[in-house]
């Protein structure tokens, strides 16, 4: 997802960074882009951005990160969180990005359509609905 971004001071002190930091409770600038989270992420194969790239875009205040698919492929397994040498819980950053979308009322899963397809355990439905429906 190579693209151009005009870096400005406003971006770094802008709303996106503040919002993600507030929702996640994490210090985004503690991340020095070592990539351990991406190396250990079991779902990176299916992501359009690697976890470390998601974090980088947020650091830079790039709103394009909000339309990335990566946070919706994250399964909140916390493998990244226990590996980060800087103690950044990147799973919380992913959650923050999901919530920014969900709190605008945007659905990322349709319960009725899903239930028509097959019978899923409660635990799968409750988990997926909490993570992907507004």
């Amino acid at each position, binding site marked *: 997802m190579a693209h151009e971004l005009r870096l400005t001071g406003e971006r770094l002190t802008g709303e996106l960074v503040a919002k993600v930091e507030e929702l996640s409770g994490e210090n985004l600038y503690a991340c020095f882009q070592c990539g351990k989270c991406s190396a250990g992420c079991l779902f990176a194969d299916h992501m359009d951005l690697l976890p470390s790239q998601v974090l980088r875009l947020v650091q830079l205040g790039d709103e394009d990160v909000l339309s990335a698919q990566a946070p919706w492929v994250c399964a909140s397994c916390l493998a990244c969180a226990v590996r980060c040498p800087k103690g950044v819980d990147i799973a919380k950053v992913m959650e923050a990005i999901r919530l920014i979308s969900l709190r605008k009322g945007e659905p990322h899963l349709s319960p009725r359509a899903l239930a028509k397809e097959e019978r899923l355990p409660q635990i799968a439905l409750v*988990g997926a609905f909490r993570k992907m429906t507004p």
Partner: protein
Amino acid sequence: MKRIPYFPGCGLKDQARGFELAALAAMERLGYELAELPRWNCCGTVYSLASDDLMRHLAPIRNLIRVQELGESRLVTLCSMCFGTLKRSAQFVEEDSERLATINAFMDEEDDYQGGVEVLHLLAVLRDEVGYEAIEEAVERPLEGLKVAPYYGCMLLRPRGLGVDDPDHPRVMEELLSALGAEVVDHPYKVECCGSYLTAGRADVVEARVAAIAGAAVQRGADLIATSCPLCQFNLDTRLSQAAGRRGTPSIPSVYFTQLLALALGADPHLGEQAIDPRPVLAARGFLSEVRG
């Protein structure tokens, strides 16, 4: 008979009944009654990772209030997801009294949660309270010759400090399986996620995960995978069977650790309908006829 308040969770009343029934039967043999919490509600399955999402903590905290109402201070779970959610929410309000005050004010129809309820996973109770020696003594039918690959998944171990064991090098399931006489098959994917709730909507992602996990277990000669979570179990059973059909992925049955415990203690393991049936391999190793008779 010792009594511990017990939180089943939705799955254990439905497709994961065997997980619960085997645990109740096995624990009774060990002198423990798992006493189902009255009026429990769904734990919420996934712990909210947001700093401000207090609404998502109502479900777990309401369950802790039920424990408090019993005059008890402990709650044991079987499901890893319930364990993670209840334990982390308990911690979330424990570390900030303002959060707790807000949640208590919202739940004005309940007594205030005072804090202090300890959430335990059955694996930790077996290790720390019952003890492997007592378990070994109670074994009637050692699982000799049965090769079991333990599978922890995520919420049993992560985040660091809140899980039942070291998130990188857990031993609790290995030790239990050894106490039961089984041969433990170590494999590199035992702490790696099965795909969890992505199974709702992204079955393709989950199938790739469980194919890798099962492949590692099969390659190392395991007969069975042992799980502690109905979602891992669903993914390793139903989703694996779907993947195996299409990609020639190795097929291996999964069972709950409580079912192996029950089997070894001479109780009914409550093996039920599964996509990948564990009964043939258990019968081939000579473990089923006696129990079922």
